[in-house]
């Protein structure tokens, strides 16, 4: 396993920040999530806003410390990491963010943007750095002479290519893609999705792709994890989950995606109500107030996370 999260929790305290011990409660952005990413695979994480998918990505990028649970990289717990381990982790795990208009520094030239993740003591001289930058720019399909330009001289799709080149420069094993095509135009999305796929095939990268776009997630992901209100509700092979969703939330989420043809029949499950408040999630199963198949025990007992079928995990009292 390349990266493994075990029982990850992230709670943000709320209430007055002054009086010691005055915190009144906490927002349970992530409440016990266990996921793993193997080498060369794409784990798609789908869910609505507030489901905790971005918090999970921030934990993976070591931008937040988990409140509880542990993160294992190549079998080693991040909490026991020394300086060298951190340096290695940061080289191996890179990120591409949603909006290439805000994720690139407008005052830096492309060559500096792309070279920035390289650690200062990497033993490369200027010529080697320049060669590496040229190499990754070519990988993402940008002309090598774009190194002297600034981000504003590029269109949205080209900027996202720069962001991908920046992620590639340190020879990573895993790239966290946080909504990589959501900010792009429809005609450009296919270019970037194909590029990501091609890079994965040639470089053997693993991806964690966070998306609310179920079609884009299906295109890249080999495994899918569905989140709701800070918890995982279901994981499994991507095609299996799309083909036969087990959890009622997954089923509703997939049915909400609009088919691309007016005469495609739709089996719509329209959910009533709203995503719960993470400061005060419902008791029992967090989905039960909106669940079309809720049973009495769903309101009181929290469903156990278990293997429902071979390779298919879900947390639901139906199984």
């Amino acid at each position: 396993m390349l990266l493994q999260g075990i029982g990850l929790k992230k709670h943000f305290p709320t209430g007055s920040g002054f009086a010691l011990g005055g915190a009144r409660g906490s927002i349970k952005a992530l409440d016990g999530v266990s996921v793993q990413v193997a080498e060369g695979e794409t784990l798609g994480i789908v869910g609505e806003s507030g489901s905790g998918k971005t918090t999970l990505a921030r934990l993976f990028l070591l931008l937040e410390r988990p409140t509880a649970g542990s993160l294992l990289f190549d079998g080693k717990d991040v909490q026991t990491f020394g300086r060298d381990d951190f340096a290695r982790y940061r080289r191996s795990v890179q990120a591409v963010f949603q909006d290439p208009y805000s994720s690139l520094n407008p005052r830096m030239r492309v060559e500096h943007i792309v070279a920035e993740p390289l650690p200062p003591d990497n033993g490369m001289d200027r010529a080697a750095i320049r060669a590496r930058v040229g190499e990754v720019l070519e990988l993402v399909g940008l002309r090598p002479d774009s190194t002297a330009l600034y981000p504003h001289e590029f269109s949205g799709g080209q900027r996202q290519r720069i962001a991908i080149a920046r992620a590639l420069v340190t020879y990573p094993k895993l790239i966290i893609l946080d909504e990589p095509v959501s900010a792009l135009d429809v005609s450009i999305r296919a270019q970037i999705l194909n590029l990501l796929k091609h890079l994965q095939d040639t470089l053997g990268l693993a991806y964690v792709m966070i998306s609310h776009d179920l079609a884009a997630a299906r295109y890249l992901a080999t495994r899918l994890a569905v989140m709701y209100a800070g918890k995982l509700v279901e994981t499994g092979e991507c095609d299996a989950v799309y083909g036969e969703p087990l959890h009622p939330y997954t089923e509703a989420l997939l049915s909400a995606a609009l088919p691309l043809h007016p005469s495609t029949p739709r089996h719509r499950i329209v959910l009533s109500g709203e995503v719960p408040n993470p400061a005060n999630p419902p008791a029992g199963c967090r989905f039960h107030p909106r669940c079309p198949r809720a049973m009495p025990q769903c309101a009181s007992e929290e469903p156990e996370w278990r293997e429902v079928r071979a390779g298919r995990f879900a947390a639901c009292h139906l199984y």
Partner: protein
Amino acid sequence: MPGAPLLVVEDLKTHFFTRRGITKAVDGVSFTLDAGETLALVGESGSGKSVTCLSLVRLVPEPAGRIVGGRVLFDGEDLLQKSPAQMRRVRGKRIAMVLQDPMTSLNPALTIGGQVSEVVRLHQSLHGAPLRERVLEALRRLRISAPVTRLRQYAHQCSGGMRQRVTSAIALSCEPRLLIADEPTTSLDVTIQAQYLDLLKEVQAAAGVAVILVTHDFGIVAANADRVAVMYAGKIVEMGTTLQIFNNPRHPYTQALLRCLPDAGRQRQQLVEIGGQPPDLTRLPPGCPFAPRCPERRPICEQTYPPAVFAEDGHVAHCWVAAPAGTPA
């Protein structure tokens, strides 16, 4: 006028005059809309869909932007000839708008009740108890839960889906004939998006209001539109009924757009790309603006803008390639 369309737009041109030159954001757009009908305006960013909508209600940001030509006939009256005071009586009453981000279109300092009643008070001259009743009715129509408590709440106390329902309640409170919805669900979650679109469709059918739905999402088009207009670089390049566009797209741009979309209902396969980048609107080529990216480009495409080609009843495409053989060039 029975039988006449509710809205006729003829050769609408809205240009922006900037230091870099003239940006032809909308460049000769024509379409009609019948009462109760839904027309989807589809296109990428910069294709002119939003500026078209703003031009219809004369809200183009001046002085940089100006409507430089065309006619907008709404119920037989040319909106482009009206005075600002006359336009204020049209906007919000006969033509209403719902914008993309409800957090920015609602005033954070006013209560929901205050914002809904503002429109009703202005256009219907209601006060006191009848006004309150009317406001509650508008909220109930959009199935806003606990409307009486909502009246005293502020925008930040509502969820995203609820906020968009509030803006729609405001838009529909004066029973407009035309609703312009500019990317109404882009900022909403998928399950909430489905909820909202279904509700909008239901309210639309009940009130008989015509809708111009601006979107870049073909899934929304397939589910909600009666007719579709595909825009590229300020022009409508293809227009037809939803089935015509999906089953038999004639313009290479429409064809490419439909092919390049990942589909959640299908297994993974290589996506067909549209090469190149969207055009620079200040430096448009003389011919077809899509020609530089078009896989079926011919020499004539780069010189002359193609005329309208009629495929079948009401289905129009502007393309030299889609023209039947033998059409004079």
